[in-house]
């Protein structure tokens, strides 16, 4: 699939929530000054992530993505293997006073101001066709808080919070890490085919 359907719940200052469904078909990762394209595979709204027992490096992040009434920003968890687990909650940048300067990312009791990663203008101008008011249609840009990178192990819950220091608002996103080597079910019997009235034969259906 060459697009990702994101379904954010976008809350404004009055507490109203809009629910646009938006296709993202180009993804970039911002790295200080420039943005590099990255495959869409791995982008999801999952709240669970399978990992090896040894764990995996995770980094809190935001995703800025193009929307019709102003760029949206959502918290996300970036895994070093390329997965980006995106919250279904977002704010619209135009409603955030001073943009990045008011935003902080938090994970595991550590926080960072987005200003320390880059400026909003720097991010959007790193994208071909990007302008302050909006990103081009279909574009998503990942901004990672590399300083907060941590090791996450199975059975842990990683909580990423996007904080607006002006309004005191918080968008909270969490991902539960699942041990890929452990079967959560004690046994896995053969898959069954349930029949209908009087257990009639079903060969004509399958």
């Amino acid at each position, binding site marked *: 699939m060459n697009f990702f359907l994101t*379904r954010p*719940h976008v809350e404004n200052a009055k*507490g*109203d*929530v*809009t*629910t646009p*469904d938006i296709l993202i078909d180009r993804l970039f990762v911002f790295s200080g000054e420039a943005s590099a394209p990255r495959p869409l595979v791995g982008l999801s*709204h*999952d*709240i*669970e992530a399978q990992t090896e027992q040894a764990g995996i490096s995770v980094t809190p992040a935001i995703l800025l993505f193009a929307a019709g009434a102003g760029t949206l920003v959502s918290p996300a968890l970036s895994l070093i293997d390329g997965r980006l687990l995106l*919250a*279904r*909650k977002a704010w619209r940048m135009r409603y955030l006073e001073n943009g990045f300067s008011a935003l902080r990312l938090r994970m595991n009791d550590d926080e960072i101001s987005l200003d320390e990663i880059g400026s909003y203008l720097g991010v959007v101008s790193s994208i071909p066709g990007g302008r302050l008011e909006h990103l081009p249609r279909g574009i998503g840009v990942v901004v990672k808080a590399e300083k907060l990178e941590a090791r996450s192990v199975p059975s842990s*819950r990683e909580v990423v919070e996007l904080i607006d220091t002006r309004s005191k608002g918080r968008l909270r*996103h*969490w991902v*539960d890490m699942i041990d890929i080597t452990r079967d*959560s*079910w*004690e046994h896995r*019997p053969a*898959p*069954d*085919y*349930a*029949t*209908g*009235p*009087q*257990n*009639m034969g*079903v060969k004509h*259906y*399958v």
Partner: protein
Amino acid sequence: MKHTAYAATMQGVWFSHDDGENWSRLPTPTGGMYNEARCWAVETHKDRPGDLLAGTDQGLYRFNVDRNRFDYIPSPMDALQILRIARDPRDPDFIVCGTRPAEIFISQDNGVSWERSNLNSATECWFINTTRITSIKFDPRDPDVIWATVEIDGVFRSPDRGKTWELLVDGLHDRDTHDLVFHDGESGREIMVSTEDGMHRSMNEGQSWRQEPTDAAPFVYFRSLHGIGENAEILLASVGDKPSGETGMVLRSTDIGRNWQAVDLPYPPNSTIWNFGAHPADPNLIYFATIFGQIFQSRDAGESWTKKKRELGEIRMMAWEPAL
């Protein structure tokens, strides 16, 4: 009783604040849930007035009374269809959701974290191809026991709050099961299950079932069951010609389903009656909906019914609770 009624429809959740006469949705642009989300389940809890949960094809939602909007609840079920929701009557933080494909997801912390239960239902089935949960009931005698019906697989019973499940189909004429009702009387426990092929009764905790005649209905497609009173002294059963069907009827019994009487309805149902909506605050006040959108209301425990003027397209579930 002044109350708020809810309808789960294929165009989201509808609210009525005037006895079911007028219905509306939350503001389309800002209500927090896509207003044409397919919604199968609405669930209230007697101890949490206004705390409505809604199961859709886009995730699980909770109504936020203060802000008059739905709040999205992150869960592993976003890609599934959330067809049924039940909460422990003693503990509203304990939520059980049933989906299509037939899976059970449980949260013990009011939706903050979720576990997929090992229901181990059939992975394919006759006719509808994919199994689905049609009812979830906490056992009224012991709420640590959870029951579920699966279309098409049978009756499931969990003795340990959803950790393990047992499939109970011995004697079922049809594993296309829809709903359950329980009665604990002097002669012991009786459980009724509605199926695509009539009513079945168990006298031994579901270990075996016996199909029972229901001569009061010309059809055998039984869908929803509702027990009125703490011990289901009165039973209501919804019947239709088929799913989705072209007509339906309500049967009423005052002897635990041994004899049924067809209830007079003021207007012919346009399809199978899919669901009864009730609340313990007033056992006599009951709604039902046909799958194709008609709404009926009874104020006398199902003896008589009025049809509401407003119809809502395709309705999958009704609920109500006392007005806040």
